[in-house]
């Protein structure tokens, strides 16, 4: 399976193809594929499984890379189709429009570097939230508290806690999109 990478010159003006070893391909792209699947709505276990499926499908033949962007896009497309197939086989409702919007957002915001930049940007944006909003988000995602517990901690109603977190997430999204553009 492993072979040294080779470069292929294919005619005038055409990009050079590069043969990647499976290990190289997986090491470079697995984090991005996993994060992409998580953004579509996969649980961590589902994302683990589908990431493996995606790479196995592609690696049944030697993989030639023309550009990292093309490879990442191709991997995402395979992962996307796998995700849809699995959901449909399980009989789960697939909100195609929402999934496609997420796909487009990911392509726009995170495709260049497998999601590293958007993560860093998100951390910066978290600091820009109001204290209450940041508490609510941290209680939800870091401490895994329920809505009732968050509401009690902030001394507001459950509905108020829900709205607060919705607004905070919207602010984070707007902030991330604004900074990355």
């Amino acid at each position, binding site marked *: 399976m492993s072979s040294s990478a080779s470069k292929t010159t294919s005619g005038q003006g055409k990009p050079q193809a590069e043969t990647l070893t499976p290990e190289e391909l997986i090491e470079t792209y697995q984090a991005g594929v996993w994060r992409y699947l*998580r953004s579509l709505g996969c649980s961590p276990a589902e994302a683990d499984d589908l990431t493996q499926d995606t790479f196995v499908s592609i690696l049944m033949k030697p993989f030639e890379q023309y550009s990292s962007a093309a490879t990442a896009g191709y991997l995402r497309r395979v992962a996307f189709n796998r995700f849809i197939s699995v959901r449909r086989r399980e009989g789960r409702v697939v909100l195609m429009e929402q999934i496609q919007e997420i796909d487009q957002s990911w392509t*726009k915001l995170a495709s260049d570097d497998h999601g590293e930049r958007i993560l860093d940007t998100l951390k910066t944006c978290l600091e820009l939230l109001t204290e209450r909003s940041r508490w609510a988000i941290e209680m939800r*995602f870091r401490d895994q508290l329920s809505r009732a517990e968050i509401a009690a901690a902030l001394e507001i*109603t459950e509905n108020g806690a*829900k709205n607060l977190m919705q607004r905070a997430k919207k602010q984070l*999204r707007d902030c991330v999109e604004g900074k990355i553009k």
Partner: protein
Amino acid sequence: MSQKGEDIDNENPKVDSDPLIDSLLEECLGGLTPPDLSSQIIARLRKAEKANEQTLVSTRRTTHARQYKSTRTNRFLTISVIVATLAVVTSVVGFVAWKHGNGFALTQNETAQVDDVSVVDEKPADTPTADEMAAEVADGAAVDPPDETVSSESIASQSASEPGTSEPESFVFFGESQYAKSIEPSSAEAIVNFVDDVFQKQWSTRQIEPASAWPENEWLERVYVRVLGRSPDPSELASFAKSKDPNKRPDLIRTLVESPEYSAEFVAHWTNVFQTRLLGDVASKPIIASAVEQDVPFPRLVQSLVKESQSGLVSICRNILGERLECAQCHDNQGQSAERYAQLATWLRPETRSQFSEAVARSDEAHQAFVNNIWQHFFGHRLTPWSRQSDSALQPVLDRLTQEFIAADHDPKKLIQWIAMTEVFSLSAEVTRSNETDSVVSGEPLFSRQYTQSWFATSVEESLAKVATSSFDLMGVDADPIETIASVAPDFKADVVPENDQPDFWSTIALMNRDAGRSRILVDHRDMLEHIALSKLSRREKAEHVILAVTGRRPTPKELSSAVEILRSQASNELLGLRDIWWAAAMGHH
């Protein structure tokens, strides 16, 4: 996502969760970082390759056995085939000879059909696209990775550097235009008369008596609200009432739409209408605002929206093409074709989106959908149903308006004027025995009366701002109004601007309680509200008084219950509560 996290967001997953942000937050704060799956992937790959080899070996064995068996039968088959072939050839020769004897030649029609550009859904070149290969890979087949001619980024960059590339043959799925033959633009009067005639004929055929026309001041208010997004101010009312000009109605409409005096209001209102109502999530604020202000031609606007919007195919079909394909993502359903969805979806990829947007901008469907959208803005309901081939009785109206819209260089101002000038638009909401069968519930409304519509919240706000002589802020409390309302109304959704112009009571109040709205109080009504607040009436009676004063009718039980809840929540400042009830009632009144 953790179980608790799922519990939090499962209530309304589509609205409440943002999977992209959620997953990143779980990684950022929750430590759910991407695992190293290298060893698992390699192990699975080895297993899959081994399984593949075994399949190949057994396939070869089976093939050998079959080959041996087939040799014996081959000889027999060969002889049979030769005999059959001879028989077929003989038949064909005989047929040709017979046909030649009867004048074997294409008729004129057949020639024309052969020469005509037929509507065929053609796939692009045989080279599989990245999506097709990805789909095959998803189903387990091993395929070659995409070469550079179909990599999405390289094609995207190529198409970006080749603007105005001519449409490939495969875009004929929109069909030949029925409006291709250009006509001389008709006069506004001719168009309006045609529209009114069609409606008259339909009413007459179905024995429907249209409602009486609105009184003049009501008609005037309706025009102002639909064209400018606000009520007429007292001076405008007085000026119109005073005029005895028989053409004052069309003249007024023309003035509101075209005169520089109203230009700023017109642009602001229609930008809002397109963004929040007519184009749904396909709308892009910068594109819309610029288009309305600079009279950007309709095809260019549509092309920009489709090309640059981040929306998916379902949104584009619904808002731009007037076609519903929500169900067709998975299956055929009531005119929604899964095959059509699949065909259109192949062209929405980044590398072909530009060409797709050009084809959409030229399509009849986009033009008809635009006319239907404008009609819906004025009447509350589409002229014809959601369908690619509509057999609606009102299709001639849609066709004529679309044709004239194109002939008028796609000027939406003309379309707005024609619709506003019709007699149909001037009908009141009066329901009588002779028009009660005409309803939107029937699925084919005939507009023999005005159907119920609500204002935009922003229209009410603008109207209040226009007539207020001064404003003051009644807010003397520190509480966040959103949280206050949320604590009272369990289903309340904060910061959600109503998607249609029929918001519920609570959303209306939330909208009015934004900072900008707080200071816009109608001074004229303060005395009345203060008087009610200071009286000894019960909360129920106070709420009833305000609603009666605004709408001229008693409140429904639901309205009364909501209004009482508002007063209860504003116990420390009842005047504020009464103000909120006043606004909410005023909004529902129209």
